[in-house]
């Protein structure tokens, strides 16, 4: 049941996708059509961004993948067991328990799985160190800044060493400086733990900087308008943002997004 991420399995992406959406659509009780016939395959080790305008159903798609909402039609196939901690989820808000310390919040997935003792504690301490919050284990969420709370949230999602990490516009509410910092930190964590990441954003710059692949979505009902591979050199760093390749790629993704939204 417990696997590790020692081997980045990018090369087998085509052979065995970790996530496959076939003809998935979603219509809410109110009659609102959020998603229409979405097909998507995500290979192990990929960093995929779902990019689209607000209200295009990106978050709904993510919730379907997480099993939090059933699709109205179509199939969502996961190569992993959702409930065993193989899947991590980071919400737009940090979503921490205010009555628990940082370490208790990060330990939550283990606590639910009834795993106690030294091993979970060590893993939680390691995850807190990995997001740069060593020394804050016993702080309460209200004592931390917005960026630090989001780091706790990421640590909690990473503590079970998930195969698939879903992030729903996690940095949208943060200021620019914190956001850029957390972008870099997320990349370092991805390189280290090598989960497959599906990242929802409406920022072109963020998606190009982070991803190996971008799925551009249309406005409501959401469907995948374009699937772009981002082959900027790895590992990415601040220098990437200044490179002409990055600018060119942003330009291209922007144009694709504009096309998808129907604006000339």
């Amino acid at each position, binding site marked *: 049941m417990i696997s590790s991420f020692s081997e980045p399995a990018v090369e087998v992406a085509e052979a065995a996708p970790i996530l496959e959406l076939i003809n998935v659509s979603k219509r809410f009780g109110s009659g609102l059509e959020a998603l229409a016939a979405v097909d998507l395959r995500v290979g192990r080790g990929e960093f995929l961004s779902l990019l689209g305008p607000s209200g295009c159903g990106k978050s709904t798609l993510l*919730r379907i993948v*997480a099993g939090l909402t059933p699709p109205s039609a179509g199939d969502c196939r996961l190569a992993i067991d959702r*409930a*065993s901690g193989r899947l991590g989820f980071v919400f737009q*808000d940090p979503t921490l*328990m205010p*009555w628990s310390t940082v370490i208790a919040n990060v330990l*939550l997935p283990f606590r639910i799985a009834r795993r106690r003792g030294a091993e979970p504690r060590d893993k939680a301490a390691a995850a807190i160190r990995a997001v740069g919050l060593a020394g804050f284990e016993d702080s309460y*969420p*209200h004592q931390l800044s917005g960026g630090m709370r989001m780091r706790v949230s990421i640590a909690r999602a990473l503590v079970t060493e998930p195969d698939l990490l879903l992030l729903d516009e996690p940095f949208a509410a943060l200021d620019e400086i914190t956001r850029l910092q957390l972008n870099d930190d997320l990349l370092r964590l991805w390189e280290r733990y090598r989960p497959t990441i599906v990242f929802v954003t409406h920022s072109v710059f963020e998606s190009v900087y982070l991803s190996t692949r971008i799925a551009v979505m249309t406005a409501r009902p959401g469907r995948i308008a374009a699937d772009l591979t981002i082959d900027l050199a790895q590992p990415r760093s601040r220098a990437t943002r200044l490179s002409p390749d990055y600018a060119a790629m942003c330009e291209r993704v922007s144009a694709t997004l504009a096309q998808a939204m129907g604006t000339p």
Partner: protein
Amino acid sequence: MNRVWLRVIAPLAVGALFLALWQAAARLSGVPVYILPAPSDIAGSLWVDGPSLLGSLLVTLRITLAALAAAAIIGGLIALVFSLSRVIEISFFPYAVILQVTPIVAIAPLIIIWVHTPFLALLTCAWIVAFFPIVSNTTVGLNSADRNLLALFKLYGASRGQVLWFLRVPTALPYFLAGLRISGGLALIGAVVAEFVAGTGGAETGLAYRILEAGYRLAIPRLFAALFLLSVTGIAIYLVLDFISRRVLRRWHESVTAEGEE
């Protein structure tokens, strides 16, 4: 610092001024003591009748605290059951409301007929007045867990029991404590009303009955002294519950941390 002083001194000054005016008015107007005693008369009565009044206060206080404890435990359990089953909540909540809005003075005589032990009868009356804020507050609290946290618990495969103990109960704790602070005052009111209706419960006489008795005998300074003790008790109950609530929530809840150390 200045604000703290202002908070203490300003109300005290108002109180002192009020007492001084009262004293002067009572003495200068010549209104008889059995209609409006001066504060000095009340203080005298408090000194003379104090020991026997305190004995009665203890009787009332015992009923109040027992009713409050019963309200906290039974009210909390009712809220728990309500939160576990929407059907039960919808079916029974209206009756909790009916029990709450029916004046206790009107039900008290019935309860005193039905329940033969005087202590239990008084306790039941006080409990009926006190339990509702705890039930309604705690039910709201148990149902207001963060939606994303609920989703997260679901994602990690949490059982219903885990969702309840790790998420709903901690979420409800501040609501429960707020309800408890309201119920503290209500339990005292309930106990007093029940004593008014029940009269003297055998050998033990509560403070409320002493007030009635003092009224019949036109011992108005003693009536005021008993009233004073009752008010002080109510304030003390509130302060103790407020202190407990702050102690419990001091580490994390906004109501406490916002004005805290930082």
